[in-house]
């Protein structure tokens, strides 16, 4: 049972030292009760307090790490909807390596997947893990592939074999890597011993809620704390409902057996269908998503979706503040200015591109705020824009001496002209969607 703020307060030192970052012990207690802080932030907490608060201060969904160096971290989510706060830990995206595909094919897959990365909005997006499945009798090839991944990859590994001996040999081979063990059947005592000895997370599978809960209890009793849950179904609608029910049970009902990250393996052979399933999984609570094949375009779409859904709604993504070429601008091309809120940047650059002209787009640093917000905060005014333009060396890059500002901040035009001698400021349209018509009707250079 969760403790109230007052219950927790009684266990704290009551010194109001502020070392936890909160001014008073009472305030800290309230934050603990709301699960917005952790007891470890208080350096003076007694052992008694730690024991008593252990259960209460535990996050409702456990944080699980797979891998040793730069581990993949999943779980520790606190809300059902991203607008309530944010989703914290991006799901791990992986592919399955099936032993039956043969060594040569798998080598290729490992190399491709390992090498894949794509840049988007200044962020390097990469997939995270291999699910290595022994789907033939060939245990030695299974181990060989594990060895190969160990040598050539730094990604997380989930090993998956129906053979208890092969699982054991695999875990021992990767004992420094903190690999995860995928159990499609009920865990044996040997498996749980193995996981405990080598501190490996375990993916538990079940066909129904009760079965899953009892498998979790059994693993916990055996001393295995790091679990990932796989409530089996191939139906996307059921998957979405399962995940909602599991997450809601953990967050709203404090049902401990389901307080773990969730796992999905996508089986579809049709790539379009696989992406559709993965999209639903990513939006609705899966923390590990395993794809059947390596497909660059599909990974790009899914990694972009992950970036979108896991963006903190309170902290908009920023793009780098700099001068962006749109199309193939020459020194005579027109100049537009806007803010570095990513959405603003995307829409404005997209519409300039749609208009068919080439241009220089000056993206000022407004700490990710949109045009009107940044203007209201004094971050997008004549002085700051002029300073940025000078520092960016735009005056050396272009011969144009006209600059288009967003229509919503027409009031800064005089101020900007004063701060930017020699330039003429043109007030643009208010909506980006009007840019194509604006550039047709206004002399920009």
């Amino acid at each position, binding site marked *: 049972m969760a403790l109230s703020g007052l219950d927790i307060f009684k266990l704290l030192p009551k010194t109001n030292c502020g070392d936890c970052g909160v001014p008073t012990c009472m305030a800290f207690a309230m934050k603990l009760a709301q699960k917005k802080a952790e007891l470890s932030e208080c350096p003076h907490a007694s052992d008694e307090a730690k024991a008593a608060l252990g259960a209460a201060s535990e996050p409702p969904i456990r944080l699980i790490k797979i891998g040793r160096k730069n581990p993949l971290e999943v779980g520790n989510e606190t809300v059902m909807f991203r607008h309530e706060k944010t989703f914290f830990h991006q799901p791990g995206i992986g592919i399955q390596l099936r032993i039956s595909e043969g060594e040569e094919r798998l080598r290729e897959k490992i190399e491709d997947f390992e090498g894949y990365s794509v840049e988007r909005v200044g962020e390097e997006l990469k997939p995270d893990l291999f699910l290595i499945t022994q789907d033939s009798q060939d245990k030695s090839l299974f181990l060989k592939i594990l060895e190969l991944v160990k040598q050539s990859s730094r990604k997380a590994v989930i090993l998956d074999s129906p053979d208890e001996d092969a699982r054991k040999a695999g875990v021992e081979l990767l004992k420094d890597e903190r690999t995860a063990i995928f159990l499609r059947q009920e865990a044996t005592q040997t498996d749980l011993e193995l996981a405990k000895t080598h501190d490996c997370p375990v993916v538990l599978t079940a066909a129904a809620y009760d079965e899953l*809960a009892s498998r979790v209890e059994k693993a916990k009793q055996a001393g295995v704390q790091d679990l990932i849950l796989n409530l089996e179904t191939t139906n996307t609608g059921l998957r979405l409902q399962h995940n909602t029910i599991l997450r809601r049970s953990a967050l709203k009902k404090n049902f401990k057996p389901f307080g773990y990250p969730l796992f999905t393996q996508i089986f579809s052979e049709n790539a*379009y269908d696989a992406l559709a399933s993965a*999209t639903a999984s990513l*939006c609705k609570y899966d923390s590990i998503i395993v794809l059947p094949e390596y*497909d660059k375009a599909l990974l*790009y*779409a899914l990694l972009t979706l992950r970036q979108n859904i896991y963006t903190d709604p309170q902290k908009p993504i920023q793009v780098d503040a700099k001068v962006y070429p749109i199309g193939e601008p020459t020194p005579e091309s027109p100049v537009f200015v806007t803010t570095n809120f990513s959405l603003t940047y995307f829409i404005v650059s997209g519409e300039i591109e749609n208009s068919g002209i080439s241009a220089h787009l000056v993206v000022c640093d407004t700490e990710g705020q949109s045009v009107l917000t940044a203007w209201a905060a004094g971050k997008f005014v004549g002085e700051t824009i002029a300073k940025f333009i000078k520092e960016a060396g735009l005056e050396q890059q272009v011969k144009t001496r006209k600059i288009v500002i967003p229509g919503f901040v027409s009031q800064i035009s005089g101020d900007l002209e004063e701060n930017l001698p020699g330039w003429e400021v043109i007030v643009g349209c208010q909506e980006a969607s*009007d840019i194509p018509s604006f550039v047709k009707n206004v002399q920009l250079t």
Partner: protein
Amino acid sequence: MNFEIPKETNTGKVLEVTIGATSEHGGTRTHTVEIGGSTALPFHFFEGHHPHPPRVAMEVFDKKPEKYPALLLDYFGDVIDHPGDMAKKCVQEYGAEMISIRLDGTHPEKGNRSADEAAEVVRQVLDSVGVPIIITGHSHYEKINEVMKKVCEVTAGENCLISYVEKDNYKTIAAACLAYGHTIVAQTPIDVNLAKQLNILLTEMNFPREKMVMDPLTGALGYGLEYSYSIMERIRIDALAGDSMMTFPMLVNPGYESFRVKETRAPEKDYPDWGDLSLRGAYWEIGTAMSLLAAGADLLILYHPHTVATVKSKIEEMFEAKEGE
């Protein structure tokens, strides 16, 4: 271990909206399409009802868009200039459940076609297919008001879905919808309060609530999708909580938005990390469409035949879960 499924019941319900009219009701459609009616969050069959699955429409054009993607010409090159034939192809070959006619060619800067020409295109499409029709306009207020007035008049009784009105331009089009028996789309720019405000304005005109659909504005994958996604979740949560001004079904445009962005146009040789363009186009639209479905979309206008097939079969699959719980 006795686990009890935590159910949340809602007091609110998404309104059921019918689009199209058969001869019985003064139209010429072979059937109508109903959307809405949900009493729970999307696909939550375990705690509510979803009497109508989300529907998939495809779009045809009064004039070939200037930037129509090459990728789609492979499928529609032969019919892109013939909206009636294109509509037929969308319905018969690709399984579109409704057809949207986008009248961008009437925009003064995109062809400036007359209201009569637009009406003629709509007539052609109505004659070619039996499914209910969506008419999609643009933001040149003066012109679109003139066009929609005419189109509403010549399609009187068909109960088309007229897309869209905005806060600063709703009276003329709403009045035409009222006069000629059409359903309306209220579009607002990714904002819960503005959406509610426009719905209030329309109901203050005595617009029938069961003839209203909301368009919270779609951002494509990588281009503001997360804003649309969260706004739609918030609108749906409010609707289910009983807010009568949020309780309308939602329309989204993954096709139009996805096929404007670079990711559905740029070849792999320019962006090697982006992968095969012939796959990427539909992928981009599928990622956009599937996430908005999870957020509460009731009607999706899609462009790529692969997206249509995938999203339709996925909706069907997800609705099989209705029996499962």
